[in-house]
């Protein structure tokens, strides 16, 4: 249980899931001698929220950039809706993958509404001549775009700030605006790169609700995050990336139970640490017992073929414990700068 990675078919089925939307196979990205991402497979099904976690420098953002066409993978291929993704980021967006950035990259000197309208770029056609001649088609397209943009702003809760400069928005609202801007391109898959970095618990909660609402609009979400509580509450499936390689993939409980994940985040205990051996022994015994319990619970749940209330509760408490454990790495991660 602890060693073999769980495959997608054992993951709990999210509503409307099934058909694979994004299919990355053997994605490898090398920069000179450095291999940032090594042979990563990842599938995102429609209607699913998938999390991607890993310690700093694990290659999460690089992998994201491979998915969005900012980088062309050295090896492997990424398929979206059964088509190989083009190697240009604007074509990827046109194909239906939208993204946000780890460090916010809004168009700072444009208004909130204009930012979202820029996101509509791929879904509108009006070119230079249309803009100069201003035929009826231009006015119709502009009106539709504005209407759609306003609707998205209302959706993320920024409708009343449409005419503000985006640079003047508070941090949390800038994050929301980035999501609204990404949604404006009418994507099938939304990639969120640390959407809650630097947020307080209330804002994180709100973001969680927002991501669920986005999923309910039929958009699959792939999210990078360091906040364990957030990721385990949110995701149907979680993949762990360590040193460019996928360590494990599975549902929240599986990932949380895996000691390698904990080790990757908190580090191995020091070998010559006095008393470490005993502590490790005790821990191992405890972990073993806990695992057995968890396995039992899962077996029961599987037997009942339903979301057993007890099992769910156990999972929830597990998640909280893991969240508490992961609090330290979260804090350090919040200040991480863009690694591109």
């Amino acid at each position, binding site marked *: 249980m602890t060693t073999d990675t769980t495959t997608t078919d054992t993951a709990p089925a999210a509503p409307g899931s099934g058909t694979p939307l994004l299919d990355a196979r053997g994605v490898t990205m090398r920069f000179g001698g450095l291999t940032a991402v090594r042979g990563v497979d990842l599938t995102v099904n429609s209607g699913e929220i998938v999390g991607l976690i890993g310690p700093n420098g694990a290659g999460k953002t690089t992998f994201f950039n491979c998915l969005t066409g900012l980088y062309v993978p050295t090896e492997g291929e990424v398929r979206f809706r059964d088509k190989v993704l083009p190697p240009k980021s*604007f074509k990827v967006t*046109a194909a239906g993958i939208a993204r946000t950035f780890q460090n916010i990259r809004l*168009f700072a*000197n444009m*208004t909130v509404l204009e930012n979202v309208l*820029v996101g509509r*770029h791929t879904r509108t056609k009006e070119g*230079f001549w249309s803009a100069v001649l201003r035929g009826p088609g231009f006015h119709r397209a502009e009106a539709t775009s504005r209407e759609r943009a306003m609707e998205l702003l209302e959706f993320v809760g920024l409708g009343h700030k449409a005419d503000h400069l985006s640079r*003047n928005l508070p941090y949390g609202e800038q994050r929301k605006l980035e999501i609204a801007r990404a949604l404006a391109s009418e994507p099938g898959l939304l990639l969120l790169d640390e959407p809650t970095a630097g947020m307080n618990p209330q804002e994180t909660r709100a973001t969680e609700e927002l991501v669920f609402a986005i999923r309910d609009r039929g958009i699959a979400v792939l999210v990078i995050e360091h906040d364990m509580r957030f990721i385990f509450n949110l995701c149907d499936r979680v993949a762990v990336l360590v040193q460019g390689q996928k360590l494990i993939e599975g549902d929240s409980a599986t990932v949380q139970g895996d000691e390698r994940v904990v080790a990757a985040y908190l580090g191995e205990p020091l070998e010559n640490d006095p008393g470490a051996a005993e502590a490790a022994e005790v821990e191992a015994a405890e972990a073993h017992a806990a695992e057995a319990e968890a396995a039992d619970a899962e077996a029961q749940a599987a037997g009942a073929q339903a979301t057993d209330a007890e099992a769910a509760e156990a999972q929830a408490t597990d998640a909280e414990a893991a969240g508490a454990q992961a609090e330290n790495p979260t804090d350090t991660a919040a200040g991480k700068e863009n690694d591109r």
Partner: protein
Amino acid sequence: MTTQTTPPKSPDIPAAGAPAGLIGIPERIARALATGGGVLAVVSTFLAWTWTDEFPGDLTFYGYPGGLQVLVLIGGALTALFGLATYGVKGLGWLTPAGGDAALKLTSLATFATAWYTVLAISFRLGGVVNLEPGGYVVAVVTLAGVLGALALPFERPEPDPIDPEASRGERFRHDAAHGWHVVKASFAAGTPRPLRRLPASLEILVIVGILAVCLLVFTYGIGTEYDELFIGFLITAGFCFAALHKAGLIAHATRITARHQNITICGAFVAAACFPFTQTDDQYATIGVYILIFATVALGLNIVVGLAGLLDLGYVAFLGVGAYAAALVSGSPSSPFDVHFPFWAAVLVGALASLVFGVLIGAPTLRLRGDYLAIVTLGFGEIFRIAANNLDGTSGPDLTNGSNGVSSVPDLEILGFDLGVHHVIGGVTIGRFANYFFLMLLITAVVVLVFRRSGDSRIGRAWVAIREDETAALAMGIHGFRVKLIAFAVGATLAGLAGTVQAHVTYTVTPEQYLFAGAIPPNSAFLLAAVVLGGMGTIGGPLIGAALLFLIPNKLQFLGNYQLFAFGLALVLLMRFRPEGLVPNRRRQLEFHEEAAAPDVLSKTGA
């Protein structure tokens, strides 16, 4: 300066926060002095200031102000008006929506500076103060009294920064100097203008007409100044008075009214510009007008490339050259190797198309570069154009451009039987050759303004601004960066080519030396860029005003001679230090550079 200490006690400086003036005169006397100074300055302009008409402008008459006296009269009148408004005289309240003290100070300064400049100029030119008539002394004294009174008006003193008590003498000096500068700045600070009442639409349009009429008057006066002293006086008065109007909050109100009726304002501005030739008695100043218009139009085209799309193009004048050469070659000029004479509309198309092709040819390889690299490569291409035009003379290359002699004797245009080369009489006013071309150029400017406004506020314009703001994010939003940038580049090139077709006919001759990177005479690439940056990037008014100033100042101040470029550089450095967003700031850019200023919450459309 980590330790926070209380400010040093200095009894001679009034307590911070307490209102007091720069000069220790009681407020009532100070205000009376300032206002009275304005009134008396007006009166003194009716006196004779000198005894001989050797000083230009003839300031020898009693009861008839002339030349520089008119400028002092205007400054004095404005001072008096603002002074009375600060007394709360009924019916003048609208003059000072943001408080009148700062405006009063600036107008007093304007009057003082102009008057003293005049008096000094008279003394120097004629050799001694003995050449002054009593009027000259009177004006010097009253304007000095006025400015002293104005500077004594109280203002909110800023709190000095705490200083480290162990600071060295040099640090102390620097600290005091910085504080002094803050105090001086604070003495000219104005409040926020109170909100403007909504007037009936017809009245607002009337106000716009009034504003445009004043602008036309000021511009016409500036162009028509006949001698250096008058032009310098004009610059002093206009500069200070504009600052005063700005501090009084009138400019803010005017902007708000014009923003409500944008289309009317733009149409009105064109009508006002079209009135310009009718204010001139001969063709002398219409020449300057048409050159300014060519320069301004090209600068506006460059503003699409630089201001909206953020592509630094240092070889932009080449596109003007391509347009001009194309039009000259098909104009039936005897030195053109092509023996054709196209009608004007066809020549315009050829010129624009040639520039478009050239723009795409240059843009396609260079626009893959970003930032500084693009600037360097465009600079190179600009020079390549000029050198190529120099060499295509039949000896070192195919005979196309007639080498350094250029394409000469470009015939005058004839549009629908209307010969632009000869003067016509319209409504009793003689419209000369340059005035004809002025009207034609105005039409082209209108086209450029239309393209700028409409493309700026559209999907493509937003894509340009997005690329300027953050290219990576723009690409991630699905914007085909290269294509969108190429469109901006090509549009800019085409508009410059359009202006070039007219330029070829106005100047008769097209030579490679007209299209330098930098030179004393605009338009050249450096001046074009300077006009855009000086005027304000991403605005329509900015490049127009910037181009007018950059053309007029070297043209009028002939005595600067060899120091012209030096003065230009100095002015540019000062401007970039104190007003990096340009004279007519785009509201976005103003925020970018002055973060401490209160940010307006609501903005209007792109490029507006």
